[in-house]
């Protein structure tokens, strides 16, 4: 098989990513979102197009493509056109760095790693390129020449800039453990030290995922869109393919946040407990399946958040980002650094940190459960508290 040189394979993978990701986003994620939300909201969700509604994505695509593409008369035409492109291209580019799996034999004597490229500044590159996507939203909001879109664009400018900071700092804490920015190396190191970084980096993961949800403009941080306030905000004046691009950009960003979470914190393509003999059977499942299963779980979390939480208000969002996430991220860096410095040359510090975080997590879960039970009891009391009659 002389044709399948590494270069050709790379091109093939790029084409596959660019062609497959929109399809996956359009079909699987959107359908999953609508069906899951339907399930959570005690309704059916789309179930008419195709068997069990599986072709709904196709119907949506046809609708979006055939819709009239409207540019407002007084819009900044060039920017209005460019904005959705800016939103989608960085997101797709970032996918090139995600390691979906180690080498996979695709033909006799031909095997290729399941990522387009492994850059030694991988994580940094992903952070950098995904922040370019923000420009798409800001410019889209501004170019529409609509006050609501402008407000949406401004909101996203402030929000995304604010949440880049805790997100980057959360990842810095992990970098102290990984000692490498290469995503492949990060996964391999988790394999070597027999520890997923989510355990010593529990706090970092929490910060990363919260900031990630905010970065992708999803509930409860969907302020730039805020359908009920800004009438879809930055994308009010977009229709047809341009709107589809924004849509695609948002969902691809969501997938990237999930993929990076899996790679950095959850051992990428590694099965759970790869070094415990009792779980050896899990290795029969191919690595990339593990990767997609884990990433799928985080995409599911996004959907779950969306159907559970109300939306933050803008000032509260800012307060959360700057007053809570940022200091916590800084403290976390210090804690992780101390744990590493305390045990030079070994990973024992990380394991101790894992146990501490784990214990704290369990305690907080218990307290939350207790609080829930108490408030529930109050609510169900025959005459509700605070309901007195003075008439």
């Amino acid at each position: 098989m002389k044709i399948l040189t590494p270069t050709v394979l790379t091109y093939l993978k790029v084409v596959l990513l660019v062609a497959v990701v929109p399809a996956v986003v359009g079909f699987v994620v959107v359908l999953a979102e609508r069906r899951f939300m339907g399930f959570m909201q005690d309704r059916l969700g789309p179930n008419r197009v195709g068997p069990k509604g599986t072709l709904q994505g196709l119907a949506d695509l046809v609708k979006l493509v055939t819709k009239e593409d409207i540019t407002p008369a007084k819009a900044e035409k060039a920017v209005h056109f460019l904005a959705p492109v800016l939103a989608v291209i960085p997101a797709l580019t970032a996918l090139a760095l995600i390691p979906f799996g180690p080498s996979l034999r695709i033909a006799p004597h031909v095997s290729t790693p399941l990522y387009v490229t492994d850059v030694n500044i991988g994580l940094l590159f992903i952070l950098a390129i995904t922040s370019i996507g923000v420009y798409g939203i800001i410019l889209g909001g501004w170019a529409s020449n609509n006050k609501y879109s402008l407000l949406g664009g401004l909101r996203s400018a402030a929000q995304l800039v604010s949440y880049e900071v805790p997100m980057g700092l959360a990842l810095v804490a992990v970098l102290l453990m990984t000692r490498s920015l290469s995503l492949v190396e990060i996964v391999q190191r988790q394999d070597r030290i027999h520890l997923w970084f989510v355990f010593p980096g529990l706090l970092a993961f929490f910060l990363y995922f919260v900031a990630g949800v905010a970065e992708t403009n999803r509930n409860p941080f969907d302020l730039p869109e805020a359908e009920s306030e800004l009438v879809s905000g930055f994308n009010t004046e977009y229709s047809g393919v341009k709107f589809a691009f924004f849509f695609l950009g948002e969902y691809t960003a969501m997938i990237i946040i999930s993929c990076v979470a899996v790679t950095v914190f959850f051992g990428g393509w590694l099965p759970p407990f790869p070094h415990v003999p009792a779980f050896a059977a899990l290795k029969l499942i191919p690595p990339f399946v593990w990767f997609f299963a884990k990433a799928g779980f985080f995409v599911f979390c996004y959907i779950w958040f969306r159907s559970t939480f109300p939306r933050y208000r803008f000032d509260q969002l800012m307060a959360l980002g700057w007053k809570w996430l940022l200091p916590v991220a800084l403290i976390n860096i210090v804690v992780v650094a101390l744990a590493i410095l305390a045990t030079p040359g070994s990973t024992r510090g990380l394991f101790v940190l894992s146990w501490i975080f784990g214990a704290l997590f369990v305690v907080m879960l218990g307290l939350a459960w207790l609080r829930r039970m108490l408030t529930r009891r109050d609510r169900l009391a025959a005459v509700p508290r605070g309901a007195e009659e003075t008439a």
Partner: protein
Amino acid sequence: MVDDKRLTEAEKQEADYFARRMTQASLARPSAGAAAAPVEPPTLFDVQEMELNFGPQHPSTHGVLRLVLKVDGEKILEARPEIGYLHRGTEKLFETETYPMGIPHTDRMDYVAAATNNHAFCLTVEKLLGIEIPRRAQLIRVILDELQRLSSHLVWLGTSGIDLGAVTPFWYAFREREQILDFFEEYCGARLTLNCMRIGGLPFDLTPGWTARLLEFVDDLPSRIDEYEELLTDNRIWKNRTVDVGVISGEECIEYGLTGPILRGSGIAWDLRRAQPYECYDELDFVIPVRQNGDTYDRYIVRVQEMRQSARIIRQCLDRLEAGDIRGKVPRVIKPVAEEVYASIESPKGELGFYCVSNGSNRPYRMHCRPPSFINLQALPRLAKGHLISDLVALIGTIDIVLGEVDR
């Protein structure tokens, strides 16, 4: 004259016409003269107030409310409601038709709570005629009222949840509302514009099995309300969005004439079901939920607890229901003596009253409505001032307006 070879003669004329109109308009506008006046060069941080048109096609204005906002960034400096997009001249229509013909018009006022509208109208005319209505009719009226209060509060809960980004309570609330509408449909054939009361009583008796099914529903309801509360009441974000938003004191409420859950959320236990009992409310056992802070969260709590109380009231009414007449002694042609009366009930949104002036004919000389939505809406500019646009959405939700009733 526009000169473009690509245009047809008709198109040229049209372009001309619009060009002329544009010039006239710009001349007529006083700001056109300002162009000649020396304009100050804009500074780097030229802070400007933006005028934002909120509605009438905005998704969160619960209909066709239009608000003209003056905003500084997202902070609201001034909110001016512009109403009238749904004005149908209902009060004038009452004058042109006989008394019984007025009832269907009331359906279209507060269209998410038609039964209470019917009730207030009928109560006014009954007071004018001096009719006593039979006990069974009273109990059924109370049941319908409370069902309507539930359904109205459910719509409020769902929509105000969606306004703040909580999508799921909406579906839960509408699931129960759907059941309530089914009860209405079985009773009177309509789901929204019910027309379910008549002067002197009711149009129909209950269908067999209705009460049993209703009892089942009412017994199940507290657990359903629990589901909504589970998602919202102790939710940190929900509290962030509602606590201390739109605070109004009890005194101010009275000055504005606010009634209903808004008044009770501000610490004043004024509920017409207790203060001026009508039908058989005085013999029923229920609590009037009151909260002290007067913010959006307290109004939320008051409404949710009212739903629980409504379920209690319905259960008590079902217990007391006995066979009997559903219509009092009503003359065939309703021709009251010349008199003026005012009767009001506690609708889901507040005090809903009708003021009727009769001149002795079969039509009212004047029928004025005191719509709670309209009067409660007055407080919106006061509540919104200084808050953010996001809060405005919460405030429109918390006032619980229905534009059909505001505009009539």
